[in-house]
């Protein structure tokens, strides 16, 4: 943690500064992200929107430390993670980030509680009392009755709840959600959004990619991307459904 990587505001948990990502496509360089800068404050709830190809997936991958930017800075938990090697990035993902995917991405051969436990397996040093924590989180997301079920015995909404519990188990700085309601019907989407809302009110920082305006409307801020650049950042004055 050198001086250059320190952020100015103490409540900023993650921030990207002038981040670009260039892919080689058929020998031609393609700019997926072009000088994006966003700050994420503690307790923020940000929806990232944009049409297909706008760079929102690329941005989420960078924020999730699944990829490294071609240039620019990504400060997470007080240090620049943009140039870390693969192993260090893995540790950062496990320690500071939680993932919720559109297709839930549970491991099929594991039970509900075992799925929630997976991130703990990669935690160094191991967390004592991990099993109790998982049981508590299962209760928080409303699945304490289905601990021994397999993912294929659960509905989509229930699977997504398991995924949310799993994302929370390491108490991440940022919860990253990639179209969390994309595979769900309207009623279940509302339930999942209520759950994310509740987590956010409890202080959890959430960054969510979505293309549905009514889902994005429940965030505090909406970042719109166009052609790899930030087109607009708007505050939702009173997030819908929070009343």
């Amino acid at each position, binding site marked *: 943690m050198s001086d250059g990587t320190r952020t100015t505001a103490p409540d900023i948990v993650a921030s990207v500064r002038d981040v670009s990502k260039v892919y080689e496509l058929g020998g031609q360089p393609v700019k997926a992200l072009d000088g994006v800068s966003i700050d994420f404050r503690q307790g923020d709830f940000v929806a990232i929107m944009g049409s297909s190809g706008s760079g929102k997936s690329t941005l989420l991958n960078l924020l999730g430390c699944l990829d490294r930017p071609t240039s620019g800075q990504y400060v997470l938990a007080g240090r620049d993670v943009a140039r870390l090697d693969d192993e260090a990035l893995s540790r950062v993902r496990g320690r500071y980030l939680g993932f919720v995917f559109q297709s839930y991405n549970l*491991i099929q051969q594991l039970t509900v509680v075992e799925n929630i436990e997976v991130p703990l*397996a990669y935690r160094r040093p191991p967390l004592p009392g991990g099993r109790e924590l998982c049981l508590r989180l299962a209760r928080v997301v409303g699945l304490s009755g289905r601990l021994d079920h397999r993912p294929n015995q659960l509905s989509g909404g229930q699977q997504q709840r398991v995924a949310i519990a799993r994302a929370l188990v390491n108490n991440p700085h940022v919860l990253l959600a990639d179209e969390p309601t994309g595979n769900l019907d309207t009623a279940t989407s509302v339930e999942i959004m209520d759950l994310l809302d509740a987590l956010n009110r409890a202080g959890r920082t959430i960054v969510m990619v979505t293309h549905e305006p009514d889902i994005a409307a429940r965030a505090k801020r909406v970042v719109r991307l166009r052609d790899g650049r930030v087109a607009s950042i708007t505050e939702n004055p009173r997030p819908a459904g929070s009343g």
Partner: protein
Amino acid sequence: MNLLQQLRLGFRSLLLHKLRSALAVLGILIGVTAVIWLVAMGEGVSFQAQQQIKDLGATSIIVRSVKPTEDSDLGGGSRTGIAYGLLREDYDRLLTNVPTIREAVPMREISREVRQREFSVDAQLIGCTPTYFEINRLAIARGRPLSDTDLERYDNVAVLAHEVAQRLFPIEDPLGRAVLVGDDFYVVVGIAAPRTAAAAIGGSFAARQYDRDVYVPISTFRARIGDRVFTVRGGTFQNETVELNQITAVVDDVRHVDSTAEIIRNLLARYHKVNDYAIVVPKELLEQAETMRTMFNVLLLLIAGISLLVGGIGIMNIMLATVTERTREIGIRRALGATKGEIVRQFLWETVVLSGTGGLLGVACGFLCGPTVAAVREGIRAFLPDMWASLPATIRQLEPLLAPWSIVAAFGISVGVGIVFGIYPARRAANMDPIEALRHE
């Protein structure tokens, strides 16, 4: 993740595809069982061979008379009568000139029909001294062995081998009774205990059978039968003169065996113009057998190793399929914080569980080697008696010997095979791009 969790995870992942995993396990199982069985059989055979050689005595040196080949210059012999082989002088020379020889036994033998009333046996009449029994570890079951007094008095006494005694005296007690050899009667003074055949000594001799022997004092042999033996072959009389058929020398220390053999070789060469004798050193045979055994084991390990290799390739094949199938899981685990090393370890453990299970089951099957061989043997004896009779004694008497090192080696190799053949699929899993892996359908 601790070891127990890793193993449990490995088992559970493998149970997702029970048949596939079982087949991979089977490949390793067969390899491991093959190693243990083949080595056990090899050990059994070579143990037999070594036992037979040891029966000849590690400190013995055996010198035998050998009839020279026809075209050899016999020096004084004629077409109808030849003299060859060891002389009584040779025996005296050995005893007086070689200090490392503790004792020596001269021996003369001839095939003769031995009769008792209506019973007769084609026996091997052996003229020897009392020491012969001790050196050849011939135990006396009843009566007494030959004695020095018998030799001094040229007595007509005989010790019968167990089988000879049984065939000549099916009912009566042979002790004190007389048997007829040619025109001479011999009084039975002792019966030898049954004894298995010793190793064949030298390339030209068949395995030494002891069950047709009739032992008489060598002095009596010389007086009653003599050195010259007449045979009728192709209508003409032939006679062979042989003073001694064999001299068994016992060396005082096993370390002196090689040098003593060399001295005997030189000594005899000085007095025998024709190569009419052969020197057999059981210790050398033993060493040869030891070398053979090592070579045999290496060969068997090679064969078994190939089957393990095949099993390993099977495992690799299955793990590659597993890795492709579980691309999504790999992506999830990577996203949730698993490093490449942890993914490698996960899949490596899975392969090791697979091959280790095969190894353990293979060891279990390895222990069935003895009972299986016994069962097969009994089966052949009961249902295929003709085939049984045609089998060589080595196979009929084969007792597999489980070698502990082979069990350890087989299991170790199986786990090793798992690691070696698991590394490539595991690395392939770990090197996947997590973003691509998460998108994988």
